[in-house]
């Protein structure tokens, strides 16, 4: 049995928030390094030799943007459940691609954060697996602030600022 304190900590929504920000940061960082140079990222994708030729460029253009949109949504808490599902799916796909190429013995670069990137290996697989565990925690334990509450919060704040700024 898991001790109650540890269980409470693991299932804490504050931990979920922290993990959301953490995952969001990693994915934003990863996407921003790939978005400006899709051709290089297309090469990195092609090196995995798993995506058909006609889809390589499409993947290289779209994938970083999906990473960026999902991670931004994840941080602000808008459609965060869908976003975390997509991030989880991406992590699973990345890990499968890495494992297949490790099995083939092709020491290609992973293309994760930089164009050159670090070579694929168990470190990368574990890194992705850890992020996948984070995603599961966020999926089950996160309680995002509903948008209407966020709106009222922002509204209330802005109202106070406006009142403070109004000439007396």
């Amino acid at each position, binding site marked *: 049995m898991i001790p109650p304190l540890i269980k409470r900590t693991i299932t804490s929504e504050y931990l979920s928030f922290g993990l959301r920000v953490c995952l969001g940061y990693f994915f934003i960082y990863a996407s921003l390094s790939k*978005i*400006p*140079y*899709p*051709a290089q990222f*297309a090469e990195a*994708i*092609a*090196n*995995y*030799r*798993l*995506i*058909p*030729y*006609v889809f*390589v*460029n*499409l993947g*290289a*253009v*779209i994938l*970083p*943007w*999906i*990473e*960026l*949109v*999902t991670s931004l*949504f994840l941080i602000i808490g808008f*459609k965060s*459940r*869908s*976003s975390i*599902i*997509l991030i989880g799916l991406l992590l699973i796909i990345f890990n499968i691609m890495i494992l297949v190429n490790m099995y083939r*013995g*092709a*020491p*290609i670069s992973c293309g994760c954060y930089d164009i050159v990137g670090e070579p694929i290996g168990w470190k990368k697989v574990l890194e992705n697996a850890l992020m996948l565990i984070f995603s599961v925690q966020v999926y089950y334990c996160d309680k995002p602030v509903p948008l209407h509450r966020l709106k009222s919060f922002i509204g209330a704040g802005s109202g106070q600022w406006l009142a403070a700024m109004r000439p007396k």
Partner: protein
Amino acid sequence: MTKILIADDNSQNLYLLESILKGYGYGVTSARNGAEALKLARQNRPDLIITDIFMPVMDGFALCREWKADERLKYIPLIFYTATYTDPRDEQFALSLGAERFLIKPQEPEALAEVVRQVLEEGAEKATEKPFADESETLLQYNEVLFRKLEQKVVQLEEARADLQKIPAALARASQVSLFDSLLVIGMGVLLAIIFNISNPHGIPLIPDRPDPVPSISASAAMEGYRQGQTLIVDAMPNNFFQLRHIKGAVNMPPALFDIMYLVSLSEEDKDQKIVVYGNTISRPYDLEIADKLLLRGYTDVKVLDGGLHAWEVNGYPVDERVSR
């Protein structure tokens, strides 16, 4: 000071009524139900009573009956103030019990104060004029009112139960990830990606143009030339890590290093040299790219190996784990 007794089981209603009446200068005593109100009134006679109907222990109707039956209290006017019994038949029954007024909650403070003032002015003489209804008739009506209320409550309960039954399904729906939301997120990503790719100076075509087809040669035909030493085999894979096995004697010429490898390995070859290029993956037609480059450099007899390394290996032709040249 005019004393008013108020009876209501809801503390908020009690507080509100008390505040309004005190604001108009009346002295107010509060009771939580009919029985308590009756007890307080017998101890200290008020000038008016305002009572709710739906209360525990003793409801407003029962209080009114007791009130009007009590010789000491029956001249004190009684006002019903209710939010539950709002049917005109309820009002009719309430007035038949001898109540002076029947008010439906909520009332504006001014309107309430005006009614209180009127009732106090009319006073008790009006109360005495009221004929008491027949006992059995009263009970019959009382039963009818209660039955009607019970019916309404049953309907409300049924509605509430139906609403409650919907909750687990709604919760399950909310906990499921909406397909629409996922498509929305993906759609936004795709839209932004395409727009940015158009404006990006380093943008790429979404569907790449496949290099022009180059004549191909079967593994057996290529082997023929290879045996005679007339054919030069070029391995077009990006680097020799990709495939641990290579055609023995092949020149490794990855696209990125084409110019250097061309200078090192091919620049002194005759332009009519037979060249067979191989190296094609699901993701990149490297062989076509290199063959195209060689044709542009003036080589006339460039072919790609049909089936690549796999076809070569299947035929049992010589392969090497490292590139020899």
